[in-house]
């Protein structure tokens, strides 16, 4: 009896590249690589040839030249003498701003609508279904245009003028106009730093108190109240300090002057319109994810938790949600990604995001289409890849360990 012997070691033959599965993959890969290189080379040579024929060149010099145009909303200093590069950065920050705000409100809306769709209240459940279906099945561009038109219906600052104005400020503090929302701005006087510091310390104190309460609960089973004491720790010292320091924080209330409201904080219409449109639209998708997540949890989990004697609030927070979140979060993060990408439609409402500055006015003025669009794509790619990286890390962390 001979044991199994190794397969005969014959010398390598060319035909093995086609017939032998061990080597065939090399053949395929080589073919694929050659085809890819040929394709890319062909396209690139066409590009260079065409550019040369048209007398154009690829150059990023324009980024250093003054942009020459103004931007209504900037998070960093910017004048029309700043460079195109700086204008692009302003655009990038604006994109990130609206994406950040949008993600927060979309999540809130989505959770409400998702839970609402499962509500026992028939009317609320139906209303939420109508909301979700209406927004999921109509293109976001149409919604942006419609919501932008709706925001325009708010009274204009002119309506606040005159002896008997058509519109009045809300509580005398806030003005909702079709140019944006004007709100009081805090004015920091001398001594305000101490009040703020007190507040920050209170926040930290609340955090430690809660940790202590949990620890005590696990160690001894004794439950400390957390709600009211936290609130007290948070507010009382700061309020006391505010009066002790002689009320150092004032407010600057917006007032009508000239063409617009002056003073106070201003949230501009383009931002509001885009923010609303994106968060309502994305909220509908998140609602579906939330609903699916909650429904994905087996009823037995609820029943088991109930049989352990947990209250319904605790069933939700300790049993259902931790499991549902595992299902909900990945699709919700990809909704965040979609929201960020959809914010590129900002120009429809006049918001200057990166597509509006770099891919819009800069491209128009310089005519450098290839360069601008390449940079634009790179920017979005970087954001997306960073978000996907976060998502992958999260997925790996919460993945059920399969054995």
């Amino acid at each position, binding site marked *: 009896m001979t044991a199994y012997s190794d397969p005969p070691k014959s010398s390598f033959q060319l035909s093995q590249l086609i017939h032998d599965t061990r080597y065939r993959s090399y053949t395929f890969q080589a073919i694929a690589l050659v085809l890819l290189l040929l394709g890319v080379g062909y396209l690139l040579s066409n590009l260079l040839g065409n550019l040369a024929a*048209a007398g154009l060149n690829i150059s990023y010099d324009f980024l250093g030249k003054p942009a020459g145009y103004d931007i209504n909303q900037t998070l960093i200093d910017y004048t029309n003498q700043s460079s195109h590069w700086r204008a692009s950065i302003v655009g990038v920050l604006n994109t990130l701003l609206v994406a950040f705000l949008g993600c927060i409100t979309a999540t809130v809306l989505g959770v409400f609508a998702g839970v609402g769709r499962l509500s026992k209240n028939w009317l609320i459940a139906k209303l939420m279904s109508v909301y979700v279906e209406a927004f999921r099945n109509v293109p976001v561009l149409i919604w942006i245009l419609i919501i932008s038109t709706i925001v*325009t219906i708010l009274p204009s*600052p002119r309506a606040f003028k005159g002896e008997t104005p058509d519109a009045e400020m809300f509580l005398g503090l806030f003005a909702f106009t079709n140019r944006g929302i004007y709100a009081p701005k805090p004015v920091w006087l001398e001594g305000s730093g101490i009040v703020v510091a007190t507040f920050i310390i209170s926040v930290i104190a609340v955090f430690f108190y809660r940790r202590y309460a949990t620890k005590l609960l696990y160690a001894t089973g004794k439950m400390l109240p957390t709600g009211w004491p936290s609130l007290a720790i948070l507010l009382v010292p700061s309020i006391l300090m505010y009066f002790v320091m002689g009320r150092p924080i004032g407010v600057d209330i917006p007032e009508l002057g000239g063409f617009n409201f002056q003073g106070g904080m201003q949230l501009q219409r383009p931002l509001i319109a885009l923010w609303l449109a994106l968060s309502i639209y994305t909220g509908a998708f998140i609602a579906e994810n939330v609903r699916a997540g909650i429904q994905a949890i087996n009823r037995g989990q609820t029943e088991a938790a109930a049989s352990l004697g947990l209250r319904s609030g605790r069933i939700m927070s300790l049993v259902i949600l931790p499991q549902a979140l595992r299902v909900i979060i990945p699709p919700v993060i990809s909704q965040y990604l979609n929201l960020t990408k959809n914010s590129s439609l900002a120009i429809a409402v006049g918001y200057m995001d990166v597509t509006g500055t770099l891919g819009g006015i800069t491209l128009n003025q310089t005519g450098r289409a290839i360069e601008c669009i390449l940079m634009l794509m790179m920017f979005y790619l970087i954001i997306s890849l960073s978000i996907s990286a976060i998502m992958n890390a999260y997925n790996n962390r919460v993945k059920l360990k399969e054995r």
Partner: protein
Amino acid sequence: MKKSVFLGALTVAGLTAGAAAAATLDDVKARGKLNCGVTTGLVGFAAPDANGEWQGFDVAVCRAVAAAVLGDPAAVEFVPTTGKTRFTALASGEIDLLARNTTWTFSRDTDLKFDFIGVNYYDGQGFMVPKSLGVTSAKELDGATVCIQTGTTTELNLADFFRINNISYEPVPIETNAEAQPLYLEGACDVYTTDASGLAATRAAFENPGDHVILPEIISKEPLGPLVRHGDNDWGDITMWVLNALIAAEEYGITSANIEEMSAGTNNPEINRILGTEGELGAMIGLDNAWGKRAIAAGGNYGEIFAKNIGEETPVGLARGLNAQWKDGGLLYAPPFR
């Protein structure tokens, strides 16, 4: 449904028509159609009517060139372009001629490698405000919110104007006239700015045009003209002289009404040369001698085109102003045909 994969392959096969970069004239003749870039819709200058026919002042230039080159003013494919896409459409050869109220500037002529073939409308950027604001001069606009129609040189002129006068403003850039208009009407902007001709056209469509005024300041020079790719001078010459023929025709009184009569021969040699009854001008630009006659017959002379599309009788209601003939104190001045 899955099988409509093949549709794509067919589309590729069916629609790749040849068009080389070098000799545009040959391409246009081979194709039998002139590809002309226009705006996506600006009343009076280029907009499709209810029947889908393109109408307007810029459109008339396209039709005149098509008539001169191909003998048929209807042999035009109109390619709608936005401010963003117009230059690449021209540079990549998708269109042969761009007639999209485009301002003639140094860098567009040189850096972007285009050739402006002349000016068909002398424009300037202006401001429109509601009468109720009581503003009479653009210099009183300190702190105002300004709606800008982007895509031309508008943003830059505006920034310059406010910087020179040392006053502040809040820009609201909007891509299309259709979206800027409700913002202005609802008071989300105090001021609407774009080329004065565009302002007039926009105001004409308002419910109460009388409630809005166009301020006297014109803050920029906007010579709007058709353009072609740099490098094909023969094609540039043809289009340039078609435009000149339209302007000259008005100067010499050639109209669509009397063109037949005049092409029988007149005692003015200049008219005869334009209409091709004298001299061999057509051969010099690679066309037959009747090119000028066809171009003018397509939509009339410059004055007729102006009056029909944007003149005072139309809703747009523009006065000739700078766009009058040089004899009437305007800037239109066609070089001699000889």
